[in-house]
C-alpha cells in the first residue's frame, strides 16, 4: 500500500493556500567577500609595481592552496557542528609516513597513498574519539593534535627524511599548464566537488541538517554518528593530501612541518562565512576566503611587512568582516527604532 498524498489532501479539505514562491536567498556574505577580494587585488596592484605579474600571481597561490584544501572538508565538518584542531599534527604525521615509505624504497604511488592513508587513519581516530567515546571535538582534537605531532617527533627525532624520488616534486612544485600550478588545479577541482556535494546532494543536505539540529537529524533516520565519523576521516584524508603537496614542495620531511597551520585553516573556513555554530556555510565563501588570505599575506609580503604584523591584519579582517555587517545592521535598526 502506498500513501497517496494528493488523495489525502483532497480528503481533509484544504482551505489555506501556501505558496511556494522561491525566495532566492541573497548570498550576502559571498558578495561581501568578493568585494573585499577585489579591493585587496586592486590595493595590491596599486601598492606594489611587482604585483601584476604572471609569475607573482602564480607564486601567490602557494600561500593558500594547501591550507585551502584542508579548509574544504573543515567547512563540511564545522557545518556539521564539529571541528578538527589536529589537522596540522596530521600533516606532520602523514609527512613522516611518506618519508619512511620513500626511505624504504617504495615508488611514487606508494608514497602518495601512504600520506593520504596516514591522514585517513588519524582522521578516523579523531572520528572514533568523537563518535564512540563521545568526547567533544574541540577537546578530543586538542589532545590528538599533540599526539600526532608528538609521534612524528618520536619517530623522526632530529633526522630528516628526503629520499624522495625526483618525480615526487611535481605535486608541490609542478604546473598543470603554463603557470597554473598543480596544487591550484587540484584545489579548484576539490572545491568544485565539495561545493556540489554540499549544496546539491542528499549528503550535503544531511550534513547541514546534522549541524542545524543533530537530534532531529537522528530522528529523521540520518546516521548522524556515521556522518560525523566519515567527515573526520575525510578531513584527515585531506590533511594527508595537503601533506603530500607540502612535503613535495619542501622536498623533505621534518616533524615540525606545518606547525600552527590549524589556526590558519580554521580562519579561512570562518572567514568564508561558515558558521561555527553549525548548519550554515558555503564552499564559494571558503574559496573566496582562501583567495583573500593569499592576497593579503602575499600583498603585505611584497611590501615587506613583517609576518607578525600581517597577523594583525588577518585577525582584524576576521573580526572586521564579521563584525561590520552586524554593526551596520544594529545601527540601522537603532535609527529605525527611534
Amino acid at each position: 500500500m502506498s500513501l497517496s498524498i494528493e488523495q489525502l489532501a483532497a480528503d481533509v479539505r484544504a482551505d489555506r493556500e501556501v505558496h511556494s514562491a522561491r525566495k532566492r536567498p541573497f548570498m550576502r556574505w559571498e558578495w561581501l567577500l568578493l568585494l573585499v577580494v577585489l579591493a585587496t587585488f586592486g590595493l595590491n596592484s596599486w601598492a606594489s609595481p611587482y604585483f601584476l605579474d604572471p609569475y607573482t600571481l602564480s607564486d601567490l597561490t602557494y600561500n593558500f592552496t594547501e591550507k585551502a584544501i584542508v579548509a574544504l572538508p573543515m567547512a563540511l565538518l564545522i557545518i556539521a557542528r564539529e571541528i578538527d584542531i589536529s589537522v596540522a599534527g596530521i600533516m606532520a604525521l602523514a609527512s613522516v609516513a611518506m618519508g619512511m615509505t620513500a626511505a624504504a624504497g617504495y615508488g611514487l604511488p606508494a608514497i602518495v597513498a601512504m600520506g593520504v592513508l596516514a591522514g585517513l587513519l588519524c582522521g578516523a581516530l579523531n572520528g572514533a574519539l568523537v563518535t564512540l567515546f563521545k568526547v567533544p571535538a574541540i577537546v578530543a582534537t586538542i589532545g590528538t593534535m599533540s599526539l600526532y605531532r608528538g609521534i612524528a617527533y618520536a619517530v623522526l627525532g632530529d633526522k630528516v627524511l628526503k629520499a624522495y624520488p625526483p618525480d615526487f616534486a611535481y605535486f608541490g612544485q609542478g604546473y598543470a599548464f603554463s603557470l597554473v600550478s598543480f596544487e591550484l588545479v587540484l584545489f579548484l577541482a576539490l572545491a568544485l566537488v565539495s561545493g556540489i556535494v554540499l549544496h546539491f546532494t542528499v549528503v550535503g543536505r544531511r550534513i547541514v541538517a546534522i549541524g542545524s539540529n543533530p537530534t532531529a537529524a537522528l530522528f529523521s533516520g540520518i546516521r548522524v554518528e556515521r556522518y560525523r565519523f566519515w567527515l573526520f576521516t575525510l578531513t584527515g584524508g585531506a590533511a594527508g593530501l595537503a601533506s603530500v603537496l607540502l612535503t613535495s614542495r619542501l622536498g623533505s620531511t621534518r616533524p615540525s612541518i606545518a606547525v600552527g597551520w590549524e589556526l590558519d585553516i580554521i580562519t579561512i573556513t570562518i572567514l568564508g562565512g561558515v558558521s561555527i555554530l553549525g548548519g550554515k556555510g558555503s564552499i564559494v565563501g571558503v574559496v573566496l576566503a582562501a583567495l583573500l588570505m593569499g592576497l593579503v599575506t602575499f600583498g603585505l609580503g611584497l611590501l615587506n611587512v613583517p609576518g607578525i604584523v600581517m597577523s594583525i591584519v588577518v585577525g582584524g579582517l576576521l573580526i572586521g568582516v564579521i563584525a561590520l555587517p552586524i554593526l551596520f545592521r544594529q545601527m540601522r535598526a537603532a535609527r529605525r527604532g527611534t
Partner: protein
Amino acid sequence: ADKPVKLGLVAKSLGNGFFDAANKGANEAAKELGGVEIIYTGPTTTTAEGQIEVLNALIAQRVDAIAISANDPDAVAPTLKKAQARGIKVMSFDSGVAEDARTVHLAPSSDALIGEACLNLISDAIGGSGKIAILSATPTSTNQNVWIGVMKKDLAEDRFKGLDLVTIAYGDDLADKSYRETQALLKQHPDIQGIISPTTIGIVAGAKAIEDQGLSGKVWITGLGLPSELEGHVKSGTVKSFAIWNPIDLGYSTAQIAVQMVRTPDAVGPGKTVKVGRVGEIAFDDKGLGAMAKPFTYDKSNVEEFAKIF
C-alpha cells in the same frame, strides 16, 4: 652600477636580536658600497613554510640577491632554486642550505671552533673538572646537533678528560621549557657543576633557573649568547664568560659577498677567496663553505661595552 642592488636578507625569524644586529652590519656594508638596498625580512616563527612565503615575496620584487639563514636546509631549497632560475643570486649565512640551492655559505665560525670554544669556556668556569650537561634548542635543530657532535668528539680528548657530560636536555628555544628543563637537570643531577647552552634563549632561561634555585656561583652556565641579553647574568655571577661571533660583522660580510655576487659574479664561488671590506678576506672551499673568525669571548671585563651594541 647604475641601478641599486637589492639584497633580501632573510632571518630565521623576526624579533631576534642576533639577526637585528646582522641587519645592522649589512646596512653598514650597504652604506660603504653605495647603491645597495637591504630588504631585511623573515617569518613570524622559525618555520620553513614561513620562510618560503617570504622568499616568494622577495622573488616577486625581483631582488638581485638573497642571503638567508635557513630554518631548514632542505625545505627552502626548491624555492631558492626557483629564485636562481629567475636570475637571483643566492647565498646562505649563519645556518646553511643544501649545497645546490646556493652559491656559497658563510658560516659565522667553523663548527669545530664553536664546539671547542664551548668546552673551553665551561672548563674554565668549573676549574677543569666536573660533571656538565648541555641544554640545546629543539632536538631537530641542525647546527645545535653538529656542535654537540663536535663537543662529544672533543670530550674524548685528553685536554678535556676532567669533564663528564651527563646528559643533554632540549629547551626547544622556549623560555619556559628551557627554564623547566634546567630545573629538572639540577634536580636529577645535584652534583652537576656546569651547563653549556649553545643557544641564546637556552642560556638566558637556564641562567635564570640557576639563580632561582639559589645555585648561582655553584653551578655555572655558558654557551652562545648576546652580550645585551647576558649582561645581567654575568654581573650576578651565574655566567662567568660566554662566546658569540660578532653578528654585526657577519651581516656586514654577508652583504659584502652578496653584492659582489651581483656586481662581479665571477669573483664569488667555491674555491675562491673574497675580499670583504674591513673584515678582510674569506676563503670558500670547493663546496662553497666559508667561515669567519673564531667566536669572541665575553666576560665581566667587556660585556657592558658590547651590550650597548648587540
